[in-house]
């Protein structure tokens, strides 16, 4: 063995001399590693021994050491020469990939950089995409990368690595709504538009939601100056706003759901002066915290929508026509009886009617007020939903007096009544209603036609029912005045003899009209009385 080793050392020395020039030229790491047959990072006699031990052999694939240093398929003197030429050389270890940032499978943007760290300075670095910068153990690969899936292959002298990423476009802020520096209310939302969907969004105030390229930041924001900072994966932006108090509706008068008239006003009170007020019907007038909406409104159902800068409200009402007084009967200033009825007529059915005296009934457009009224001057006050009026009357003392007969063509107890009479009339002290009839003394109806109207009663002859001479008749009946006071009628009379009035007596005064104007022949007896 000593002899062999001595021979190899001698050979090695000789080969080292022979191959000195060659060794200096060929320092390729791959050759050095091949020459380091026992892989102890040093090329020495042990490597020569290994090659020598396999001289003439063809190495198999499962050999743990490979003495075919030049890779020509046979272990021969050439392999010995190659090892000998590097005797004394050390073989550096292979450069290994240590880490990468961002981590594999992460999402990066097109212009991001990927930094790979090796345990030593890598050599012969190439990448499938991007631009490589090598600093010591670090390799930086800078985009732009194509958006989408990136399988970045990096190859260096000692190996290769494929790094997978998802490449996205960076998001740039485009605009904000409401515009920056404008005024907000606490519950407003701010919408930010980006050119691409932003990632890793945070905001300094409010709550945000992301939808595609849009970030919506919702309050409540604190009233005052708002410096809203939004940060996302690709940048940050500070948006300045002024947050004012939101204006809220406090009260509505009249309350929603009630009935109002066409010209009524609706008053809304807010906690702060509202802005940009619009109303769906009527005219709105804003004064400080109050909005007054005035008609005319259309009769029927009203859904009135009020919109202001911070909200809206819909108020429901029933609109009715205004009711106007039209007439009164009897006319004012006239005289009434205590139990009379006063009738007022309106253009529409009145509502909420009250009167200060009498009993009231309402029928459609008519209000009837019935006594008893107090005798004397009556100041009747009628109030309804849309107005009030006062009417003056003079109320007479109650009528307790029964109607009486004031005159007539026949009076009670008359005798010698012309039996040829065809009409009997009786007058009363006031207007009456009732019945009247001509009766025999026995109480039988003679058959004349009786009528009571106004302040008169009359009896008219029916042909064939003439009065008999020298006969007692009774005019019987009952009448009552408007106050209900009744009077019984009983007038007894006796008709004249058949001879009464025949012949007729004439005078100088009526001679011409009685005698000369007579349509029938007439005989005048010029006589001397006594």
């Amino acid at each position, binding site marked *: 063995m000593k002899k062999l080793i001595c021979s190899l050392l001698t050979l090695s020395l000789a080969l080292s001399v022979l191959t000195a020039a060659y060794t200096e030229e060929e320092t390729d790491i791959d050759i050095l590693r091949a020459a380091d047959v026992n892989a102890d990072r040093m090329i020495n006699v042990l490597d020569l021994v290994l090659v020598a031990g396999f001289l003439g052999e063809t190495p198999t694939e499962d050999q743990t050491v490979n003495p075919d240093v030049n890779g020509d398929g046979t272990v021969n003197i050439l392999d010995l020469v190659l090892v000998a030429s590097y005797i004394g050389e050390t073989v550096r270890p292979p450069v290994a990939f240590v880490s990468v940032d961002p981590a594999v499978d992460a999402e990066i943007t097109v212009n991001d950089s990927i930094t790979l760290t090796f345990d030593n300075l890598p050599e012969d670095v190439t990448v499938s995409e991007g631009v490589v910068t090598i600093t010591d153990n670090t390799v930086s690969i800078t985009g732009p990368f194509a958006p989408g899936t990136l399988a970045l292959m990096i190859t260096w002298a000692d190996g290769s690595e494929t790094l997978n990423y998802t490449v996205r476009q960076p998001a740039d802020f485009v605009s904000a709504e409401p515009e920056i520096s404008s005024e907000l209310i606490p519950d407003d939302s701010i919408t930010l538009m980006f050119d691409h969907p932003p990632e890793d969004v945070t905001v300094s105030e409010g709550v945000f939601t992301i939808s595609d390229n849009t970030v919506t930041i919702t309050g409540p924001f604190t009233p005052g100056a708002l410096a809203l900072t939004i940060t996302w994966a690709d940048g940050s932006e500070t948006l300045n706003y002024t947050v004012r108090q939101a204006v809220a509706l406090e009260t509505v008068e009249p309350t929603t759901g009630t009935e109002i008239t066409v010209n009524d006003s609706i008053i809304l009170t807010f906690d702060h002066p509202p802005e940009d007020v619009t109303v769906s019907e009527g005219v709105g007038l804003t004064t400080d915290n109050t909005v007054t909406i005035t008609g005319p409104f259309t009769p029927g159902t009203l859904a009135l929508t009020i919109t202001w800068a911070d909200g809206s409200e819909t108020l429901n009402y029933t609109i009715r026509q205004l009711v106007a007084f039209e007439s009164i009967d009897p006319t004012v200033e006239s005289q009434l009886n205590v139990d009379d009825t006063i009738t007022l007529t309106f253009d529409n059915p009145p509502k909420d009617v009250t009167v200060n005296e009498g009993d009231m009934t309402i029928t459609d457009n008519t209000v009837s007020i019935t006594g008893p009224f107090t005798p004397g001057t009556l100041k009747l006050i009628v109030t309804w939903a849309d107005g009030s009026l006062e009417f003056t009357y003079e109320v007479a003392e109650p009528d307790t007096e029964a109607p009486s007969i004031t005159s007539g063509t026949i009076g009670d107890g008359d005798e010698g009544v012309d039996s040829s009479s065809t009409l009997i009339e009786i007058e009363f002290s006031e207007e009456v209603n009732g019945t009247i009839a001509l009766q025999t003394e026995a109480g039988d109806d003679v058959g004349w036609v009786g009528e009571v109207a106004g302040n008169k009663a009359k009896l008219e002859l029916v042909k064939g029912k003439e009065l008999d001479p020298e006969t007692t008749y009774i005019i019987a009946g009952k009448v009552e005045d408007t106050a209900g006071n009744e009077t019984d009628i009983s007038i007894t009379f006796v008709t004249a003899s*058949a*001879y009464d009035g*025949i*012949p*007729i*007596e*004439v*005078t*100088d005064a009526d*001679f011409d009209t*009685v*005698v*000369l*104007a*007579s349509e*029938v*022949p*007439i*005989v*005048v*007896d*010029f*006589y*001397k*009385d*006594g």
Partner: protein
Amino acid sequence: MKPVVTAVALEYRDTFTFARLDVNTQPEKTVAYYIRGTPTYIVFKDGEMIDQFIGAMPSTKLVGNILGALGIEETE
């Protein structure tokens, strides 16, 4: 004469009318018709005096004179 006049007036009231004028109290017509004695009966028709009779007489004669003046034939 009143009962006679009354009886005639009542009986013939559908044919003619009988009137009486007191000459003591009604002088105007008494003078106007030249009344010289009583009773005097003057028959008027259509406003015109057509006949007159003077002196008391039975009812039949009185009726006959009157109907004769009127041109009416007596039925009885």
